Each structure stands twice: as structure tokens, then as C-alpha cells.
């Protein structure tokens, strides 16, 4: 356990500057978006008041989040891309470079499955750190909004409304229903493990391993796709469909972990 924690920390430590860089980029980009769109709304308010044609409706923080879709989505998409690439790089960086770090890593006096799990844990920590940072940032941005927009123009909104106002938050990133969060991120966690095992297939069998890896990812995708597409108006009842989905998820996860552990313990070469 101690070795596993140390390995996780090592991976976090190696990525810390990139992680903080992504957080900084997100904070700067989104703050500019909030300030810009609050100013646009305030100018519109003042112009309407000057012309005196109609009394404009006050606007809320959720309105601003709704206005600035692109400004919020862009740093998030950049972060998703970086983390997606790092799923591969977290392994390949140990082979690539002047001195192969993989030599030392696989010589550590610990079960090699700990290396596999530590890398996966690190990726998940980065993902959830970014999600949590986004939540914190939204709170800070709301304070900023309250600070720059005079109270005459302002109306209150719920935090959940601000989250729901942005398509990137509402659909994949921060769904308001806890069950949806579990399903989305559960599938994401499985995808990370499947990709790790695919990478190890390539590392173990090289060119032939690429074929194995593609076939393995396709097989897992087919199993999950089959589970996702079970129709409640078909042969199975809804409770059975839930059980089948859970069963397929656990089987794919179990096979992926077992294969990954076996490859990293018995087959891997440096």
C-alpha cells in the first residue's frame, strides 16, 4: 500500500506543473469571459436605460455563464485533450528519453500491478482535480460577478442553474444528477483502464501488439456499446437491463485489470 501511495505521488509530482498550468489557463480564460460578458450586458442595460424605451431585465450569474459558452468550453476542451494525450504519455515517457526510466521503475521492490494502478490513479486524480477546480472557480467567478455588476442590474441565481447554463458542464462534465455523474465517470474510468491495457499490449508485443490493442479496444467498446443500447421495449425488462449493464461493466473491468496486471507483471519488456 505504501509503495502504491509513493508511486501515485511520484506520478502526481511529475505532472504537477502541467496540471497547475491547465488550472491557470482555465481560470484566466473563464475570468476574461465573465468580465467581458458582464460588461456587454451592463452596456446593453445602460443603453436601454438611456433610450428609455423599455426597462431591461436584470441578469444573473447563470445568464453570464449561458452567454459565455465558448469562453468556458475552450480551456476545458484543451484540458481534456491534454489529459487524453497524457494517458498514453504517462507510459511512453518511461520508455522514451535519454535514460529509460522504465528500467528503474520495473526494478522497484513492489508488485508491478502497483505501477499500473498508480498511473491510473494519477490520471483519475488529475481529471477529478480539474473538475473540482472548476467548481471552486465557479464560486470565485460568482464573487467576481457580484463585485463588478452593480446590484441594480443583478438578479440572483442558484449555483446549479449556473452549472446547467453551460452545455459542457451540464452534459458531460458536471451533470446535476449524481447517478449520471457516476455513470459518465465510471465509463471514463473503464476507458482509462482499457487504454492502459491496450498500451501494455503494444509495449509487450510491439507491432503485433498494436493489432492486439486495436482488437481489444474494439471488443471492449462493442461490449459496452451493446450494454448501452439495450432497449427497454425489447426482450429484457428495465431491471434486467440495469443488471446486464452492470454485469458487462464489471466483466470488462475485471478482464481489463486481470490482463493489464498479467502483462505488466509477466510480459512487459524494456
Amino acid at each position, binding site marked *: 500500500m505504501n509503495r502504491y501511495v509513493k508511486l501515485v505521488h511520484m506520478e502526481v509530482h511529475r505532472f504537477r506543473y502541467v496540471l497547475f498550468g491547465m488550472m491557470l489557463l482555465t481560470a484566466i480564460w473563464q475570468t476574461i469571459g465573465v468580465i467581458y460578458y458582464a460588461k456587454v450586458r451592463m452596456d446593453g442595460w445602460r443603453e436601454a436605460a438611456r433610450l428609455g424605451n423599455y426597462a431591461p431585465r436584470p441578469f444573473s450569474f447563470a445568464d453570464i455563464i449561458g452567454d459565455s459558452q465558448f469562453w468556458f468550453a475552450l480551456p476545458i476542451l484543451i484540458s481534456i485533450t491534454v489529459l487524453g494525450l497524457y494517458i498514453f504519455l504517462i507510459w511512453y515517457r518511461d520508455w522514451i528519453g535519454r535514460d529509460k526510466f522504465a528500467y528503474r521503475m520495473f526494478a522497484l521492490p513492489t508488485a508491478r500491478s502497483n505501477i499500473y494502478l498508480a498511473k491510473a490513479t494519477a490520471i483519475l486524480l488529475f481529471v477529478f482535480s480539474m473538475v473540482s477546480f472548476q467548481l471552486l472557480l465557479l464560486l470565485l467567478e460568482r464573487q467576481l460577478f457580484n463585485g463588478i455588476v452593480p446590484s441594480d442590474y443583478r438578479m440572483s441565481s442558484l449555483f*446549479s442553474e449556473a452549472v446547467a447554463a453551460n452545455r459542457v458542464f451540464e452534459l458531460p462534465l458536471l451533470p446535476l444528477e449524481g447517478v*449520471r455523474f457516476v455513470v459518465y465517470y465510471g465509463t471514463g474510468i473503464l476507458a482509462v483502464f482499457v487504454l492502459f491495457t491496450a498500451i501494455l499490449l503494444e509495449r509487450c508485443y510491439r507491432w503485433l501488439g498494436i493489432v492486439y490493442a486495436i482488437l481489444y479496444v474494439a471488443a471492449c467498446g462493442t461490449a459496452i456499446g451493446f450494454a448501452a443500447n439495450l*432497449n427497454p421495449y425489447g426482450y429484457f425488462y428495465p431491471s434486467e437491463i440495469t443488471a446486464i449493464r452492470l454485469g458487462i461493466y464489471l466483466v470488462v473491468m475485471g478482464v481489463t485489470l486481470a490482463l493489464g496486471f498479467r502483462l505488466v507483471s509477466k510480459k512487459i519488456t524494456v
Partner: protein
Amino acid sequence: MKRYAITLALVVFIAASLTTFYAYGADLHLPEYRLQTIEGDPVEAAALTLSGSYVGGKGSYSIKVSASGSERYEPSAWNQWMQNEGPLTSPMYSDFNALYEKHSGFMRGKVDTYSFYTDEDSLIFAKAAYTKGRDSLQDGTIRWSLDSLDLASGKQTHYWDEQQLEPASNAYAYVVDVQKAGAEVHVLTNVNRVNQTNEIIDKVFDTITGDPIRSIRLPLGEPSEPDRELQIMVLAEEKPTAANSRVLFLVREQRKNGMGTAATASDTAPAVFSEKLYEYQYASGEVKELPLVAGTEENNQVTSAVLSLEGETLIALQKMEESVTIDRFDLSAGLAQPQVTIKTSQLSEKTISQAQVANGRVYLLLQADDYFKNHSMPIAIVADATDGRILYKGTPALVKANGRPDDQLDDVWLSNMLVLR
């Protein structure tokens, strides 16, 4: 420990923020509403649900309001995927839930609403499918398959039959009603062909042996001109699983699609030349024409009309802006009952936005003309279909603000009505 400060901080940060968000921050705090009785018997509103949107604050959320409270529902892809109860919860028909619960093995994979029949002895499911031959212009076959469950013994039987049909390049068949008459089970099937009059076939099987007995093409008339077609609307028993010895057809002769001289989009509805109502008796095989029942008051423009068969009574409901008329025809006696009219002047100053007839009742939804502007709540009315007597009058009312500011509490637009049969 100090060495692991970054990792530890990240773990604590993640746990704290996600837990706090899902415990306190993710709730939309939608206000709760309930259909409350203004006058009459609240039991009459048990089958009634109003649906619409809550638009307070940012965004719009679909909600349903009934006498038991309100709930948010989201017709999203997510709900289709994750929360869809499939055929287990029918918003239209109450008896299906019990059938799926009681006979889950037999009901597995059977979802077509109008394909069921049940009585105290048996539960029957019928299916019809049209299959093209190798040369689709030369041959096509319709195949019926039936599953029958003996409720006393639990024995299941399966039987089927096939029949060649006239060639058609594009056709499909489906069951519109299943009924039992003595030892025969009748599977009423609609065969649709593109640009042709649809055909109604009564396929009859022996309930004991499962042997096909006969197949009858119902004589519902022919178009009088080559550029015309018949549109046949089936009026089967309102409750799909219930027994009824007859079925009705509203046959409309109209110009074929694309053969008119439409100048504008509003003229594209095909011209209707005649309308006839037929009754078909399953036991005798007799088809006879019935008088068209509905008539409206003068100077009142009908905005929608509904025909419904409940047992031995044909009910015609016609909705105008400020009144509805209900015409009832006793099919066994062949007698038209006196017309019943319900006017909004009896009820409130609102107009009728929706009207439905079901369960021997007339359900009305009344809205103020400018309700979108003033956010006024609709009024739901339940009246006796036989005499128009008002049995229930209710309106959605706020039960719990749930932390929403006062100015958002009436931001609810309920414009649809759902009645459970």
C-alpha cells in the same frame, strides 16, 4: 508526510468539492405544485396529470403536476437510456402495469398496445408482419402469430398463419384490435400500402386448437374516382385490453396526396368528399353503416373533434373555443342520446385549450387567453359525459417554494393534459 502534500491536498480537495456539490449545490430547487380541488370530488382527478414547463430563473425544466404532487421529468436522451421503464409504466393505460407484474414471463418482449386481449380466462397477444418476397412487386406475405395464456392453468400456446397478399412495392401491416367471440379469436389487422387505400383484414383463429378458421377483408367501400382514396380510421375499444363485440371505422374519401391543385402550404390538406361511419360485429361478421353522430351549435368553429368507443357507446367530442359538445350513440339500441354541451361561461372566463373523453368522463383544460403573459394557472375540469354535470374543478397550486424567490413561483406553464385510461 510533507512529501505527499500535493497528492494529499488534491485528494482532500476533490472529496470536499464533489461531495459538497452533490450534497448541496446540484439541486435545482424547483418549487412543488399540486392539483388542488376548487370544488367537487378529488377522486375524479386521480387519472389526471398536467404537464408543461417551469421557466423560473435560468433555463426551462419539464414538470408534471397531479393531485399527488409535482415531479420534474426530462424527455432527454439520458432518460431514454437510463430511466426509461419501457412498457412497465404506461402514461395512457392503467391495466398494462398489472399485466406486466402478474404475467411477466408471458409479457416479456410484448409491447404493442393494441395487440392484447384479456378476460377472466385468457390473455392473448397477436402480432402481424408483412414480408416482401424476392420480387417485391410480385409477391408479399402477411404472417400472424398469436400467443395465448390460459389464466387458470398457466399453459401457453403459440399459433400462426400466413397469407399471400396482392403485390405492393411498399406495405406494412399491424394489429389494431384483438377480440374473442365464443371460441374464436379475431385479429383485426390494418394493411397500409403507399398511395393506396388501406385494407382491414379480420383474421380468425380457433382459440382451442389454434387453427386458422377464416380471413375476411372488410368491405368498407371503394374510391369513386381514380384520383381519390379512402382513409380508414379504426375506432376500437378505448381500453385496448378490454372486451368489445364490435369495432367502428370512420371512412373518409379524399383526394390522393399530390393530386390536388394546392397553391399554398395551407392548401395541401387533401380535399375530403365524404365521410361514413361503419360498425363491424366480430361474432356475425356483419358490416353496417351508422349515422354520423356529431353536430355542433351554429356559429361555433370546431377546433378539434374526437371519436371514442367505450363499451357499447360511441362518444363524439367536439371542442370549440368556449364550449364542448358531447354526442353519445348507444350502439346496441341504435339510439342517439341527447347532445350535451358544456360552456366556459358555466365555469370561468377562460377558453378551452384541451378536451379529452375517457373513463365515461370529459376532461377539460381551461386557460386564460394571455396566460403566457400573466403566468396564470390553468383550470382542470372533469365532467360526466352522460349529462355534462361538473364533477371536479381544480387548479395547480404552489405547495412548497423550495427556496425559490417569490417572483419565480408562478413561472410555470402547464399546457398539456394527460388522462390515464
